[in-house]
């Protein structure tokens, strides 16, 4: 059992998402920063589909009634138990110890994975909260969360994953609606430095920058995925994140590669993002490199 002492602002339980219901218009949800989430689970020997906590807004602190291995990940994250400890590291926690997350002004999303996983009841096949539809809810001070059986122990502590560099340099694959933009506008998109708008949230990162205006003409709504960069007629692009709508009527100028989604999600209002063309090969290699970094953590048979 995990007891939440300080809940942050809008912290939720998340797992890898509920993609099986996207056809019913239900967003996938899941973590806004998929690599940070996956790394946290891997560090505590959980399966990839285990649920963990996405923390939005500090302070966030908690305690357990038994011993657990935990990992905290996220941008500029760290933690304190008796003293300061690093994030992106598996840490053994004894019953009754208070764990407090630390961060900086740039810590938009932090993750806490616990060995055994958070075992709240699933809804529609997933434990991921989707607040706009009343699926799950924000964590509250004093509440307790059930946990699964821990397959980890003190001997599994002190393993680390190298934290990604959240540098705002984002790789994308062009399209699928490249032909909806003139060559001039496409060139401007790849030359521009965009800034993150303060209305950005788990649904999408909204960008401010030079106008990226699509050609005239209507586009019939089509399915959209995480990372799609939609461009409404006003010319301010939106990068779709975990809580995105499943269909959209705006042309998609490019799609962020999976490995770089966290760079977009973690950017705080006012921070700069730039987009670079990548090929399918590069996108896959980047993703495989991420997975290899985590596979090394698992116990070898």
């Amino acid at each position, binding site marked *: 059992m995990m007891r939440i002492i300080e809940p942050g602002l809008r912290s939720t339980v998340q797992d890898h998402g509920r*993609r*099986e*219901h*996207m*056809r*019913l*218009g*239900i*967003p996938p949800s899941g973590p806004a920063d998929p690599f940070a989430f996956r790394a946290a689970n891997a560090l505590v020997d959980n399966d990839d589909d285990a649920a963990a906590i996405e923390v939005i807004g500090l302070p966030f602190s908690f305690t357990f009634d038994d011993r657990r291995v935990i990992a905290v990940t996220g941008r500029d994250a760290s933690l304190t138990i008796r003293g300061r400890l690093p994030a992106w590291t598996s840490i053994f926690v004894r019953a009754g110890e208070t764990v407090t997350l630390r961060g900086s002004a740039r810590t938009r999303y932090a993750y806490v994975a616990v060995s055994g996983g958070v075992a709240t009841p699933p*809804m*529609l096949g997933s434990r991921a909260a*989707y607040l*706009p*539809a*009343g*699926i799950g809810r924000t964590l509250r001070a004093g509440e307790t969360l059930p946990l699964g059986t821990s397959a980890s122990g003190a001997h599994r502590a002190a393993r680390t994953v190298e934290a990604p560099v959240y540098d705002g340099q984002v790789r994308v694959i062009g399209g*699928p609606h490249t032909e909806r933009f003139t060559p001039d506008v496409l060139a401007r998109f790849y030359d521009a430095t965009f800034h993150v708008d303060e209305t950005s949230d788990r649904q999408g990162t909204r960008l401010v920058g030079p106008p990226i205006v699509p050609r005239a003409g209507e586009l*019939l*709504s*089509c*399915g*959209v*995925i995480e990372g799609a960069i939609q461009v409404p007629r006003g010319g301010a692009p939106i990068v779709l994140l975990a809580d995105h*709508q*499943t*269909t*959209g009527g705006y042309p998609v100028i490019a799609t962020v590669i999976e490995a770089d989604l966290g760079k977009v999600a973690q950017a705080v209002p006012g921070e700069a993002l730039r987009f670079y063309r990548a090929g*399918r090969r590069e996108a*896959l290699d980047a*993703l*495989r490199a991420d*997975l290899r970094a985590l596979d090394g953590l698992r116990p070898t048979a």
Partner: protein
Amino acid sequence: MVELGETFDEAAVARARAIADAWERLGHGPALPAYVSVVLQFDPHRVSPEDAERDAGDAIARADSAPSKVTGRLIEVPTQYDGPDLAETAEHSKISVDELVRLHSGREYTAYFLGFLSAFAYLGRLDPRIVAPRLARPRERVPAGSVAIADGQSGIYPLTSPGGWRIIGHTDLVVFDPAAPDPALIHAGDRVRFVRR
């Protein structure tokens, strides 16, 4: 993404749905059908893009050779025509409110696909005598259960949310219930009839 053309009709929407069904039967991942396109998702750790591309081609061929025969259920939606945009939309269409209600409730709609909000079904088509462009200024808060029209289609807001469609009435039916085994009242391919209350 598979694109099937620029303009849609019932046949194109049904084809998109059939391709999505064929893809989902392969077990690679979910598909998102819409008017004239289908997004096919797969996990590149489990299926290589080359294999996914080949399987997508097969799914399209299979869907085209055996078009979906499923006609879906008929769902009746008891509707009170009391929406804030009813009178203005009737005026805009140069018909009476009563005529608008008669035209809206007097036909069977097909659920093309779900999107925009959880369990929001795009229902086509509206009688062309009803002229209902989207609102120039979307509302910040449209209550759940609002029956709305826009751009030749109708829909029911499953959740209270922002929205730019014209609200002509409301229903007490629960359109989206995440705790139910089947969370969506209307599925793509179902037929829908609004019944005046």
